[in-house]
């Protein structure tokens, strides 16, 4: 199959799903109260994007996502590198981290609310917490992907510690680091959404949860489309970068 054919088939599939979304509810084959036609949803989306209340919610959610990301990624990366580089720390913390990693983070959400209330801080803290472990794990894997042979080669040509870091460690780790960025954003975004939907007075998650409870399905689906578009855009941007720097990994 050529690349063009593949793209054509994917687009056809997408058109089919979107077409069904538009046609089936209009014909009454699906209850339009449960699945409003796509056209109505898009109209609602445009209308929502004009409302100041929605602007504010988007700004709050975006701020929470960005701050949590800025906290979780460098912190997790630093811990991950420390654990991978030090046998001592690794032996102590690795098993513990694996245990915590396996536990669903959402069960800790009520504790965050008890300690921090339901404001901005709590959203950021919970999202950072739910992202941290996957960053630690990936950063450890990134360091372990550096080949001892490559470090030896660099040393044999007189590389300084700094040169070994910038010319061997960084390029070796780059593909996994970018992958980490991508995956941690998925966890991070999910964390903020869960926290907003569970207990909040503002944010997109809060709006979506309200629309659901009030049976406002066009608004609910408009919110879903908006968030999906943002998430997919971020993911694909980083993935393109990833491809570019990891062409050698074959």
């Amino acid at each position, binding site marked *: 199959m050529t690349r063009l054919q593949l793209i054509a088939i994917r687009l056809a599939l997408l058109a089919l799903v979107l077409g069904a979304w538009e046609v089936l509810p209009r014909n009454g084959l699906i209850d339009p109260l449960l699945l409003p036609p796509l056209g109505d949803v898009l109209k609602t989306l445009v209308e929502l994007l004009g409302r100041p209340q929605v602007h504010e919610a988007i700004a709050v959610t975006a701020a929470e996502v960005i701050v949590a990301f800025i906290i979780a990624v460098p912190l997790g990366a630093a811990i991950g590198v420390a654990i991978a580089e030090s046998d001592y720390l690794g032996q102590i913390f690795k098993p513990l981290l694996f245990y915590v990693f396996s536990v669903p983070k959402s069960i800790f959400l009520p504790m965050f609310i008890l300690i921090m209330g339901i404001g901005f801080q709590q959203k950021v803290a919970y999202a950072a917490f739910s992202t941290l472990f996957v960053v630690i794990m990936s950063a450890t894997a990134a360091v372990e992907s550096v*080949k001892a*042979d*490559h470090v*030896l*080669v*660099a*040393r*044999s*040509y*007189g*590389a300084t510690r700094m*040169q070994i870091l910038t*010319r*061997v460690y960084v*390029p*070796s780790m*780059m593909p996994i680091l970018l992958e980490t960025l991508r995956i941690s954003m998925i966890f991070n975004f999910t964390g903020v959404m869960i926290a907003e939907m569970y207990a909040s007075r503002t944010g997109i998650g809060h709006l979506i949860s309200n629309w659901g409870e009030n049976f406002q399905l066009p608004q609910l689906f408009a919110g879903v489309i908006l968030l999906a578009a943002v998430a997919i855009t971020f993911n694909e941007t980083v993935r393109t970068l990833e491809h570019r*720097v990891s*062409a*050698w*990994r*074959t």
Partner: protein
Amino acid sequence: MTANLSVVRDAPARAAIEVADLSHTYAGREGPVPALTDISMTVGAGRFVVIVGPSGCGKTSLLMMMAGLRHQTAGTIHIQGAPIDAPDPHRVGVVFQEASLFPWLSALDNIEFPLALRHAPREERRARANDMLNLVGLQGFGARYPHELSGGMKQRVSIARGLVQDPPVLLMDEPFAALDEQTRMTMGHELLRIWSQTAKTVVFVTHSLTEAVYLADEVLVMSARPGRIIDRIAVPLPRPRTYEMMATDVFGRLRERIWQQIRKEG
């Protein structure tokens, strides 16, 4: 093309490599383990010396010590008349076993790597790396990445990288071990051509006895651990070496003599 590469050195009065009373012991689970004992060897400038020995005899360790990458517990190593205790790319180039190229750099960038470390000007780096690429017979392959090169080509790039700073000494740690037999013979032959054009002093570690006799001026045979040098065999075959020499009695007898030594150790 390669005339400027074969730097003619004034024949040095002393040897290029001198190892004296070298021993090495490392800390094992049940106390110290002797790895190398009483190694003394001298390699004259421009000579090609091959070290063979059973697996785990410490021949790679010995080579790493000559490269300044590991420290022996006793004894001294002099390279070009001065002791070596840290890597010195101006005196020693190292060619490692397979897969030591950086996969994220093109062939040319891999060859330039040692020059980039000391911030050589970009044009000089390029020119020098291109000369090396030609020397190892890879004209036109500079833009390729390691995963786009065959095993033999990768080792040609490794050799070019080892030579790019024009060090008088080249240390080679089983560079052709991962290649198929045919490529291996071709690469051995190529290495001799490059060696004769550049006049380097080479120490070459290998498992292959045929390769050892084919390449060497002198073969050093090491014992099983703790490694000692148990035999030094001069190879009187004329240069340039040819594949036909492998079928001669002299070649067979030398190979047999080394094999007998190593078998006793196994």
